[in-house]
């Protein structure tokens, strides 16, 4: 039964690792170790993805991620990054109001981040 389970878990593996039990067992053990490790890594990766998205969303409105989050903290708004990234993608108006609230609370640097102006041929794009 154990062999059967291992060969089931080894579906999609390369070469003899999907067919031959001695090789499959090693590969499956490695795969399970990776999944254990990556369940923890996934949380980190998702968080950095959310931060990238929030950064992109706020820079459209001339604010960068650091100032935006600082303004939110000052205002005691406790939306987490997951929700903020989803709002920045799907609820642009609500997200803009959040950016305005944050900018009001923490004006940030004097150099406001302006979306890059297109010059030359890229103006046509």
């Amino acid at each position: 039964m154990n062999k059967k389970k291992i060969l089931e878990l080894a579906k999609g593996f390369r070469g003899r690792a999907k067919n031959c039990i001695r090789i499959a067992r090693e590969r499956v053990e490695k795969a399970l170790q990776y999944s254990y490790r990556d369940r923890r890594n996934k949380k980190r990766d998702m968080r950095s993805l959310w931060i990238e998205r929030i950064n992109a969303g706020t820079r459209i409105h001339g604010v960068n991620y650091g100032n935006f989050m600082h303004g939110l903290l000052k205002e005691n708004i406790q939306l987490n990054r997951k929700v903020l990234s989803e709002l920045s993608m799907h609820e642009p108006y609500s997200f803009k109001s959040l950016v305005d609230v944050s900018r009001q609370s923490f004006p940030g640097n004097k150099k406001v981040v302006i979306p890059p102006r297109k010059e030359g041929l890229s103006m046509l794009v």
Partner: protein
Amino acid sequence: MASTTFISSFFSSPTITTTTTRRTQNNQTSLLLSKPNNPNSLSSSVSTNSNQRLAFSSLVPKLSDTIEAPEAAAEVDSTEVTTLVEEEEIPIEESAPKGDGLFAVVMIGSRQYIVFPGRFLTTQRLKGANVNDKIILNKVLLVGTKTSAYIGKPIVPNAAVHAVVEDNGLNDKVVVFKYKKKKNYRRNIGHRQPNTRIRILGITGYQDSPVVTLDDLPVAAAVEA
């Protein structure tokens, strides 16, 4: 800024700490110091203060159930929808038929979800919640409609999300395999996390809280029309 005075009391009450997110716990002391009291907004905020105190003194979710009356200390406070849907978005191309465009951000089991009425959501297992129990989720962090957003600092006062417990089940099995090489150590453990599926009925109580009306209101109205 009507909720600033509210916030200082929010964090001083001891009942909050169990369900706030990690970030809030870190920032508690700093927030207490940094919030100035607005004398202008005192009259409105006092009422919200008392309302909120009452709501949070019962802490964890109020289960207003029609079928039975347990005093469950369930941890259901706010959970929200998992599905990312663009229903609420004000259509940029006017062909998309949206519902109300109403959504809320709710915190359940220290996770935040975006909730739409009529959809369901899978959250951590809510203790004491049986099938077909009506649940009120109090920790509403943001409510958005087509034309305005009610931003909670940290929660929208008096807002509540009503939901019904549909099902108590288990997540898919996760194999926890621990292995140390050359040390003859391996452990193989299977794990199924209990969960609860909740269907959202509606979002209420946010109308009289401070609104951030969207600037592009005329644009939105023109697009919707």
